Structures are given as C-alpha cells and as structure tokens.
C-alpha cells in the first residue's frame, strides 16, 4: 500500500511536470501577450517595460526555469491580465464549476441507473430498445447545442428558467455556493442538465452492458431458478455487481464533465473555471492556462487514486499493486 502510494505520487509529479513543459512549449507559439496589454501607441521602450513587468523579457527557457523554482515554493505565477496569483483565480471560481459538475453527475446517475438496469435486465423489450436508441442520440448530440436549445425553449420562449449567469451566492464552509437558495438553484438547472447529457448517455450504456453481463452469471440464474421474485434478484444481486465497475469510470466521468464544463460555462456565462480557461485563451493569459491544466491534471490523478483505493475496498478480488 505504501509503495503504491509512493509510486502514484511520483507518477503524479511526472504528469504535472510534463503538462507544465508542454504548456510552456506550446504557448511560446502564440503571439506575445504584451501587445494586448499595452496601448496601441506604446513605444518600443514602453513595450519593453511592460514585458519586464509581466516577466516576459527573458527567454522561454529562463521563464520556465523561474516558473519551476516558484512552483517549488508554492507560487504558480500571476495572471498577466488580473495581475493576481493564477491559482487563487482558479480556486475562487472552482465552487461554481463543482456545483454544476456535481449536479450534472447526480442527474446522470439518477436517470441512468434505473434505465440502464432495466434495459440490461430486459433486453429486447421496446422500452429497452428506446433507452438504447436514446442513449445513442445522447452520445451523438453536441452538448453545447443542447444547451442552446434549452436556453431557447425554457429561457427565451417560456421563461421558466434564467438564460444565463449564476444566481445569488451564500457563504457555506468558506465557499461561495448558489444552490442554497431557490433563485440560485434555478440558475443551476439548465447548465447542469446540459452538462449531464453526454455522461448520462454513456453511463446508461455502461450500466446496461454490465447488467447484461451480470444476468448471465450463474448465481443470478441460480437465484432465478430458486424462484426469487424478479425484482428481488435484480436489486439484491444484480445491481450491486453491475454498479461496482461504475466506480472505475467515475474518474473518466469527472474528467469529461470538467472538460465539457468549458463549453457549458461559456454558453451560460457561468463564472466557473471552464469559462476562465476560455477567457484566458482569448486573452493569451498563459499563467492561468498553465495552472488550469496542472490543476485539472492534479484533480484527475487524485480522483483516480481514490477510485483505485475504493475499488479495492469494494471488490476484495482486486489487489492494489
């Protein structure tokens, strides 16, 4: 276990390091962000001064070296635009993103588990076929477009929900959250549904496949032969075993949700880290992009680690190595 931890930790550091190298290398392709910051009539001297202020006056290699040294001291650099620590900018916006990601996850699970289990247990039934067709449509939909259609129907036409933005926030355990008030929750609904579509469709298919696999197992057949009520069999034995593999896809699911949050947040003007990333890309704000990617990579590594441990705990057949 301890060895595993160390191995994982080293792996994580390597991943983060590679990410930082790649991001720095790639971003050197983009134009010099200084020109965006200075007035158009700035002279060479003024541009040089601005470059110095932004820490862009040295070669990319030196910039990277300095970045690494600072990271070792916990300083991840400052946004060119906001002139504030990039990590702080991300942490400030993180609660907003987590809110829609978690709600989307809940929606996906609540819808996908019963439908997937049903479709897996009763293949061939019309409803099962409909579920499968529906999930295929869900996978084929551009998520951002779904968001736009939802906005048009529910916000512009019928005005059930607000079209964009985040509702009023309150402080909860030091985090600014918006789901505590009805008004805030109303703002959450459309973005969360939009975000959940793709994950929901994939989950449904995974659960169905697992369920079909489980239904073929001897113990289910045995229980059925014993005459256990259909429902009891399904839920007691089948469901539990079908859901265990879900834990393993949790990491992937979270990754997808975070990635697609960039689009969802852009459409709904949701002030989370995804919109911050997209805005930073437009502004050429490299420090924020670097830290965003490192932060997301860090999150994935941690989540996958937790998933591995959980999986070993749930399923005794699996050994962590």
């Amino acid at each position, binding site marked *: 276990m301890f060895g595993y931890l160390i191995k994982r930790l080293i792996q994580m550091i390597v991943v983060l390091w590679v990410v930082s190298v790649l991001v720095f290398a790639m971003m050197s392709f983009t134009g010099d*962000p200084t020109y965006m*910051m200075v007035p*158009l009539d700035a002279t060479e001297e*003024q541009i040089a001064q*601005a470059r110095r*202020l932004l820490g862009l006056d040295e070669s990319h290699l030196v910039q990277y070296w300095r970045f690494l040294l600072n990271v070792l001291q916990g300083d991840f650099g400052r946004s060119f635009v906001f002139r504030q620590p990039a990590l702080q900018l991300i942490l400030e*916006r993180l609660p907003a993103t987590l809110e829609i990601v978690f709600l989307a996850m809940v929606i996906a699970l609540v819808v996908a588990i019963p439908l997937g289990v049903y479709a897996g247990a009763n293949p061939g039934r019309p409803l099962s076929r409909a579920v499968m067709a529906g999930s295929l449509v869900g996978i084929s939909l551009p998520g951002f477009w779904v968001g736009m259609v939802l906005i048009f129907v529910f916000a512009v036409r019928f005005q059930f929900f607000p*079209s*964009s933005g985040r509702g009023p926030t309150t402080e909860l355990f030091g985090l600014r959250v918006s789901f505590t008030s009805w008004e805030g929750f109303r703002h959450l609904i459309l973005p969360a549904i939009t975000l959940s579509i793709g994950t929901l469709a994939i989950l449904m298919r995974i659960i169905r496949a697992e369920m079909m696999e489980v239904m073929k197992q001897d113990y289910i057949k045995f229980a059925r032969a014993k005459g256990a009520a259909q429902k009891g069999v399904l839920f007691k034995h089948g469901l539990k075993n079908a859901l265990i593999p879900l834990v393993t896809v949790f990491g992937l699911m979270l990754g997808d949700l975070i990635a697609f949050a960039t689009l969802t947040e852009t459409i709904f003007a949701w002030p989370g880290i995804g919109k911050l990333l997209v805005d930073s890309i437009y502004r050429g704000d490299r420090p924020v992009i670097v830290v965003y990617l490192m932060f997301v990579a860090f999150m994935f590594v941690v989540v996958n680690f937790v998933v591995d441990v959980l999986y070993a705990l749930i399923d005794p057949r699996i050994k962590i190595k």
Partner: protein
Amino acid sequence: MTYDTTLAWTRRGVLAAALAAGIALPGAAFAQQKAVTIALTADAVILDPHAANELSGNIMFYHFYDPLVQRTADLKFEPGLAESWQVVDDTTWVFKLRKGVKFHNGDELKASDVVFTVERLKKALMASLVANIASARAIDDYTVEFKTPKPYAVLHMALAEILIVNEKYAKSVGDEQMGLKPMGTGPYKLAEWVKEDRIALDAFADHWRGKPKIDKVTFKPITNPATRTASLLTGGVDVIQDLSVRDVASVQANNNFKVITRPSLLNLVIAIDTRDKSPTIDLPVNPMKDRRVREAIVRSINVDAIRTVVMNGFATPSDQYVPSSHLGYVPGLDFRKEYPFDLEKARALMKEAGFEKGFTMTLDTTNNRYVNDGAIAQALAGMLSRIGITLNLNLMPRSNFFGYIRVPSDKSSFIMSGWDTPSGDAGNMYSVLMYSRNKKQGYGQANRGAYSNAAFDEWIDKADATADMAKRNEFLQEATKIAVKDIPMIPIHYEQDIYAAKNGVTVVPRMDKFIWAYEMDVK
C-alpha cells in the same frame, strides 16, 4: 433575477449601515436610497488605474479616482483635482490643486500624491500615459510643477487620463491589493466585487464635487447582447451598455424604455502598405505604392452600404481621420466627397496605374474585436473583387492580432483596426500612425503601412514644437490635408455607441464611452 439580487444586496447594505450607526430606521433609510444597476459587456479585470487599459476597467477607474483635468462627456476639458493651471514656459506647467479634497479613507489630497502617481506610472504597464511628462515636482502641498520633454501644448488634455492615487495607501497595500481594493478621491467607493457577477459601489459622501445623486451603483457583466436586452426588459438592470443593433427597434417600441445613441471616437481604419514590395502581394513591386491604386481602392469601397447593411445603420462614415471635435480636423474636408464610391473611376485608375488585371493580397483584421469586424472584412472582399483585387481574409483573435501586425508589419499588406483618440488631438494619432518610421524616438511606432512623407512629418514636428494650441491646431490641419490627399490609410467609419435605459434614469452618453454614474440620476 438580477433585480432581486440587487434589492437583497441593497437591503443588507442598509441594514448593516443602520446597525453600525446604532439606529433602527431601515424603512426610512431605504426610501431615500437611490440605486441603479448597469449592465456592462464584460467584467473589469483589475481595478488599478495604472495597470490596465480596457473599457470595463476604465469605466470603474473614473468612479474611484479623479484626474487633475477632467474630460466632459463632450470631450471638453475642465478643472478636476486641479483648480487651475498655467503654462510657465514652453516646457513647464504649474497646476494648483483644489484644497480639502478627501480620499475615501479621509486623507487629504496633497501634491505629493500627484508626484507619486507620476512616478508610479513611469514604472507601470500604462507608462505611455506619462510619456510626455519629464518630471513632476511638488512646490508646496497644493502646487505641482510638470516639466515636459519638449513643448507640448496639450499636456492638460493628456492629464485627463492620469488618475491620482494615494501615496500612503498605495505604498502600504502593494500593487496586488491596488488591483482589488481601489481607494481614491472619486465619487464612489468600492463596496463589493464578486468577480464575473457584480461590482457594487457606494456613494462617497465627502466627495469634493458634492455627494453623488445616486447612492448605490451596481455594475453587472453580461456578455451576451441578447441576454443584456432581456435583463433590461425584465427589470433586472436599469441601464445597458451596447444594446444590440438588432434589438433597437423592439426596445424603442416599448414605452418604458429609451434608446440612447452617440457616435463614438473609434475610427475603423485600414492601413495600406506603401513599401516597395509588399509581404502578401506576389508581384515584384507593390501596386499600392502608386497613389492611384490607393485611390481606386477607396473608390471601390461603398462605405454607405457597409453602414446600412452590415452595421444596421449604426455607424457614421468617417470624413477624416479624427472627429470634428479634435484638434487637427479640417472643417469642410470630407474623404467621402473627395473620393466618392465610383467603380468606373476606380477601374480607370487601376488601368492607368497598369494594374487592370488586379492582384491578390491579404487583409489582416480581428474577429470580434470591433463591431461586426468579420462581416465588414467579408464585405470589403466583395467590394474589392469588383476592381480585380482578390482579398484573402486573415481574421485573428485579438490575442494574436496586435502582435502579428505590429511594426515592422512584415507579414501584412492591408490591415484593418480601430483607432481611438480620446485625448481630443489628432497629433497623437498622426505621430504614432503616419509619421515616418525610425526617424524620431516615439514617432511612427505604429506606422503599419510604412507611409513616409517629409512634408507631413514636418507639420507634425512644428505642431509638437509649439506650446500654443491654436497654432498646433493649424499645423495639424495642414497634416490632415496632406494625409487625405496621400491616402496612407482609409478611414471607414466611427462605431456608434448604443445604450438603453429604463425611463426615469438619466444617462449621459459620453464620447469616450466611459459610463459615469456621477452624471446620472434616477427618478
């Protein structure tokens, strides 16, 4: 939705104030509060007036801080923190500060704060603001002496963009906090800034101009134009910036709202390459070196069609490079009358110049930086194709654009961008955009077409050598005449600023686009 938020916030603010004062009169206090919520197109990124230059930030800066000389909505200049000034000699100016001006923290404004501001700016990102100030010196607590590196007749106009910070505060909190917690002499104090959600301001009761009429001002960033309109119509906000041209008719039709328009200072111009060989033109010689070709291009562009069709009527074709309010504008001279849209004449000029068959080149411009820039570029391509010029479009996000086109502009032949001269003086634009490159330090640094005309340069030199405004105006007018004849750049149009507001809210549209709550009122 937003309305509720504002209301809730206002109540809380009042309650807190009442509690602090130990009185329990929330009802009465609430009745007297005047509040307004204004939707902007974007959130400010940093509230340090010396560290950024983008519209949302600029709007905020003038609420928290004041300049020595104040620019009015019509681009007139009048005393601000300085109550008077005089020109001592060609390069020396003395400014008398107003007495008893209070910062938000109660400190009194002193000459040392002004000197500190200049020093701070010299090391800041916006150093170009003090490029024409050699030094500042406090003569006494209320007198500052400025030295300019050369005679500079419009120093007072340039000072309108320099916002005075508090020396003690800036030194004690540091640059990072200056960006988050502004503290100046301006009419409003920062109450709360929730990024990407709202910036809430409280009136500063001890403000030197007098207490603002509106007690609470909330700015909300709403990026999508249609959402902005919807927020106005549903009562979420009282005023919106940049009403989408598509929504103008529907808002106008509603009796509860009004639409306010004003031509802006942003002139959309195309820089023409005049070098011997042009980067994107595959010909041994650059056709546009020939003035006739430049004139043909101008005559092939139907500016009026761009205005009516692409801009839905919300643009003003530019008659010169600077608006009529500026020094250097020549009354009666009109680019559109000199070179009216005329395809026949344009083709004839191309033929005369020997380019009857036309040529191919690339237009570099932005996408979503100026109003409908992409559509304008496409329209230009269509128009130039009529005289045989094939225009390829290279549309870039602005993060790449300004680096890509910068002088020496060795990848560009034809560049469309906006130029905004809030200083009220053509000299700034001419010296930066049209003065010969590499001839004089601080001149021609954005001369993207490498235009060079000794006579033009000479008039600019003369203008910059006099401390007399009338003379400066005269010299700059001569330069304007040369430029209109030479066509180093094609002015297209001024964008139009469009605001919408609830009836009962007085909005003063400013030429510099800086919405200022101090000039507003609510019924």
